[in-house]
């Protein structure tokens, strides 16, 4: 059943069949004052892992909870797997697996009992035993939830989302507060789910997580998407491929900005605490010219490194702030 294009007012139907989550012009205002989401559009395609990246308070959780049907938007259109929350709530619930940012599951139930309970809600659930195996929880099957470590609890939270056999997995900050090993374990689980054809939508404020896990991302700030694309595209678009970072004595003021900008291959200049950062296409073209320019003026380089640009740099470039800044 292919839906006829353009019959639905307010929703754009692409010829591509593979958009599974779509929202347009989403707004959410709390108590008539706080604007958490201010006009947000996004599309998630079948089989991809889509990330919402942004600092705390950017509106990520509000956005994902609206998409999950747990929060009512102030305005906007939402369509998931061609269905809408108002009309197909039960049907959608069968198709989605959701892990909230913070859920404390019953402490006096074991891991197996918890998964059995969650699987009992779905018409066609997966097997708790298989999910436990996939999530490396079999060893803890008979342990009370209250006795699990943080990483194990988080894996159980995702397991409870997976046991319903969902088509789309929603994860809100799945690795916040976890140790590096537990984070990697969770990443593997997400990839596994994706390899089986599942679609993932996750929020994170870790740029490394977004970079490694997400096929595409939207960077969110102040309730709006400020950039969208694959991690590589975003880095290339906003920061060039590489960054050349250096400092000179005597410290220069903003007036030298034009000088740095004129060096070959430089796409943009960013200065923070005396450290100058150049986004460049090819470091080997820029660096000799930089050294010459410094020497000509009788300055001295006190620091020089080159590195690959990251999503953090993209965020700094776009907002002038860091992702983890409080």
């Amino acid at each position, binding site marked *: 059943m*292919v839906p006829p294009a353009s019959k639905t007012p307010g929703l754009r139907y692409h010829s591509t069949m593979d958009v599974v989550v779509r929202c347009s012009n989403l707004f959410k205002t709390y108590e008539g004052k706080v604007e958490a989401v201010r006009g947000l559009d996004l599309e998630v395609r079948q089989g991809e892992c889509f990330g919402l990246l942004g600092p705390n308070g950017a509106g990520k959780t509000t956005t994902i909870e609206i998409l999950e049907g747990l929060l009512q938007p102030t305005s906007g259109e939402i369509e998931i797997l061609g269905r809408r929350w108002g*009309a197909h709530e039960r049907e959608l619930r069968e198709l989605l697996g*959701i892990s909230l940012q913070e859920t404390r599951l019953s402490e006096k*139930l074991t891991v197996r009992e918890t998964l059995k309970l969650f699987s*009992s809600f779905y018409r066609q659930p997966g097997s708790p035993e298989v999910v436990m195996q996939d999530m490396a929880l079999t060893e803890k099957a008979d342990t009370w939830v209250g006795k699990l470590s943080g990483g194990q609890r988080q894996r159980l939270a995702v397991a409870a989302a997976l046991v319903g*056999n969902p*088509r789309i997995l929603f994860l809100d900050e799945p690795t916040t507060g976890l140790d590096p090993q537990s984070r990697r374990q969770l990443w593997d689980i997400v990839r596994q789910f994706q390899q089986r054809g599942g679609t993932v939508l996750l929020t994170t404020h870790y740029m490394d997580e977004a970079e490694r896990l997400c096929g595409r991302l939207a960077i969110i700030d102040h309730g709006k998407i400020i950039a969208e694309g694959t991690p590589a595209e975003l880095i290339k678009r906003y920061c060039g491929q590489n960054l050349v970072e250096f400092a000179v004595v005597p410290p220069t003021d903003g007036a030298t900005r034009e000088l740095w900008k004129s060096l070959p291959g430089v796409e943009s200049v960013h200065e923070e605490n005396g450290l100058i950062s150049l986004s460049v296409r090819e470091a080997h073209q820029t660096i000799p010219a930089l050294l010459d320019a410094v020497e000509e003026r009788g300055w001295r380089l006190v620091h020089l490194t080159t590195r690959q640009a990251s999503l953090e740099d993209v965020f700094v470039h776009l907002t002038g702030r860091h992702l983890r800044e409080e």
Partner: protein
Amino acid sequence: MKVEEQTGLAPARPAPPLPSQPARTNGRWTGYGGLLAARMKELWREPEVIFWVFGFPLLLALGLGIAFRDKPAGVTNVAVVAGPGAQRVIDRLQTSPQHAGIHADVISQTDAFNRFRLGKYALVVIPQPDGSLRYRYDPARPESVLARAQVDDALQSAAGRKDVLASSSEAAMEPGSRYIDFLIPGLLGMNLMNSGMWGIGFALVDMRQRKLLKRYIATPMRRGDFLMALSSSRLVLMIIEVAMLLGFGVLVFHMRVLGSLLTILLIGTVGALCFGGLGLLTASRAQKLETVSGLINVVMLPMWVFSGVFFSYERFPAILMPFIKALPLTALNDALRATILEGAPLAAQGTRLAIMVLWGGVSFALALKWFRWV
């Protein structure tokens, strides 16, 4: 398809294939069964629940049952103030027909008055120099009033008084009229209230605070199933509570249960559901455990005082009666007492059951209207 036509939406396209094969297909009631099983397991694993639901009422029944037990052939303790006439009083008491029920000590006046004040003696007999007797008693203490009549009666007949009217008595000590018989149904009612209010109200707010309610509604779980499972778990506990308290009364205090067990369980069911509804209402919006604890206590306090758990509410002024009788715990206690102690049939309990159904039904309806899942 009907819904889609009404909303003017494009027909939903088929969902993409499942990432893994389903292990099984669940039926309509699987979710309810899962919730009930999980709830029962949680309750059993909570030591506080076991104590408050089962241990506490038994301890209370045992303690109060012992403190207010009926003394066999109640002996009246009497002090006789030492002096010239004291020995004569003792002699007369011993030769009187009532001598078995009276125990008399000869002690100094100061000691006698002191111990009378402390409750050791019910009466002080003070022989007067002119040969007459003076009784010191407390009109506010029933046993003191009784002792005065009993001792005077004994001394008069020992001194040769002749009764002008022939009379005889027969002792009728039957279970059913003792304090413990009054107490056990009251404790049962109070326990159903306590465990209903805490078991539902507290548990719900705890789950809301943990975001567990929100997590549940993010699944296809039916909300009605969730509330039903919570109520059913109360009914299972109710059966155990009834069996335990009544069994305890029968075994330890030789209580006699006159009504049918089925009627008692039916009343218990109505009571448990009524307080479950009230618990649901108190928990419908509270976000914090502190808030709901306060609310539960506010709701329960008037019933602890007025509903005749430990003493008969007939002691309150008549003007309060309509208010007292409208309380759900009063209705439950009255219904339980009438059935257990008097063997009243269910048909005779219409008003009381209606009061409970009304309280429970209205609370439940309001709770559903106001309930916050997130």
